[in-house]
């Protein structure tokens, strides 16, 4: 039987709800997992979550739109968040920001066309003594230089496409 994308998403969310419970306090943990797994919380996903938790879908939307790590629009496989708060700013985040835009070919708040990267700002990520700092998904990078940007992005690129294939062959 053909399993459509939607059915898969529904089953996925159902499994999460079975694991985390169907009370209101499970809402954010469920949404966080949907975000991590599917890089977005689509309108359909919000409807499914609302049905399972027996709340209005607008309640779900109101939570998704409030938190900056939850997003209704699709994000890239790798979300690069550069800290823009004062200490990282003084440590030279502007040059890193420009290099990130140059290397990815997108502005802040945008995703690359292949859907692999999203470039975004973060507010203080608690690495003020080692700025400029950025997050790639959950991983933190400190003392980032404009030159170092390339390496960070390259490490991400090596996990997909032709590079990943090469790596597999190497291992074999």
């Amino acid at each position, binding site marked *: 039987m053909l399993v459509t994308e939607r059915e898969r998403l529904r089953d996925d969310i159902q499994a999460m709800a079975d694991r985390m419970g169907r009370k209101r306090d499970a809402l954010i943990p469920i949404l966080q997992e949907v975000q991590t797994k599917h890089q977005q919380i689509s309108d359909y996903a919000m409807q499914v979550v609302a049905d399972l938790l027996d709340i209005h879908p607008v309640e779900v939307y109101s939570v998704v739109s409030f*938190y900056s790590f939850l997003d209704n629009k699709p994000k890239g496989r790798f979300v690069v968040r550069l800290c823009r708060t*004062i*200490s990282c*700013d003084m440590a030279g985040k502007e040059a890193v920001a420009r290099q990130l*835009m140059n290397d990815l070919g997108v502005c802040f*708040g945008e995703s690359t066309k292949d859907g692999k990267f999203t470039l975004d700002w973060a507010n203080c990520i608690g690495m003020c003594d080692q700025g400029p700092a950025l997050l790639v998904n959950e991983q933190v990078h400190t003392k980032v230089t404009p030159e170092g940007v390339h390496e960070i992005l390259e490490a991400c690129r090596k996990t997909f496409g032709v590079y990943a294939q090469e790596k597999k062959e190497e291992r074999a």
Partner: protein
Amino acid sequence: MTAKITFATIEAGAGLKAALGKGRADIIGELSASGIKGRGGAGFPVGVKWNLCAAARGESKYVVCNADEGEPGTFKDRVILMEHADLVFEGMTIGGYATGAREGIVYLRGEYAYMRAHLEAVLAKRREKKLLGKNAAGKQGFEFDIRIQMGSGAYVCGEETALIESLEGHRGEPRNRPPFPVDTGYMGRPTVVNNVETLAWVACIMAKGAGWFKSVGTEKSTGLKLFSVSGDCKNPGVYEFPMGITISKLMQEVGGEGAKAVQVGGASGHCVPAADFGRTIAFEDISTGGSIIVFGKGRDMLAVARNFLDFFVEESCGQCTPCREGNHKLLEGVTMLAEGRCSMAYLKELMSLGETMQLASKCGLGQSSSNAFLSIVKNFKDEIMGRATQGSLTHRRQGADHG
């Protein structure tokens, strides 16, 4: 610098063992005697908070560890959680015993997601050693366990009632107080919310006694405090100093001599000019959650004000008008100053707006969001006024704005 921290010298489990040997009232009495106040920034006496929660009636109670360290320039909790997590969990367990709570929740900010595996491992080990769970730490009839819940990138969730809203699955919008969380907190039950550092100190106080803690610091601000130092200094990092230290002494220690100004307390704190470096860091003078940002000679203070206001415009929850609209207006004013088209009369209007925000905003975020702007305008008028139209700021922002 972290090697110097007192936490490293405290024997694991000593605090919990000492606490469980005492009566509940004695634990709270000891904390009150030590004079410890909340280390997150607000400075509420811990003994009073715990006492209120212990006295409150409720089927279940909760101890929440506020690990939503989002204040710009603060990273001491990150270091504590990575290096001394056991001490924090010990503090929570003591809190559970003293207040009658059976569940502890760590609210960990989304940006610190990479720490979660480490913290879960520490918790698993504690469960293995029977320091958590039924008859925790060998105390008959005492049940306590701790779970971790993640934040999702909202600064305002560091405010205790917003944090509770978020734990319950809502938008992180602060509640009206009273009722306070010690009466009506998580799920409407009595809840103690304490900062990471506070809980670690609680474990230390139990191990070493109130007298030990009180022996340093000032009369109104007892004990040691961790500081997160960043910006224009030779040795940024986490430092431990007694409360009541002068800013000039602190600058010597971190290699920040010759600084033009210091931001004490992060974006919501105050900008202290070099002339006032003789002032002390204590609850009765300049209060802080530990954030110290050093501004060297060449720094443009208007750019600093803009950075802070950008932060608050983004992080305001939008619930109350003074904070939501006020920060936009102040940011607009900074742009006018940068472009050299702000009259003195309008600047005075902006300052009065800032004061209104301090009075009329609903929560601590709004009430303190204009502090940095006001203190920078007050202390650096000559620097920020009468600028040329082609301000450097207007150029710098182009193309790098957020979406």
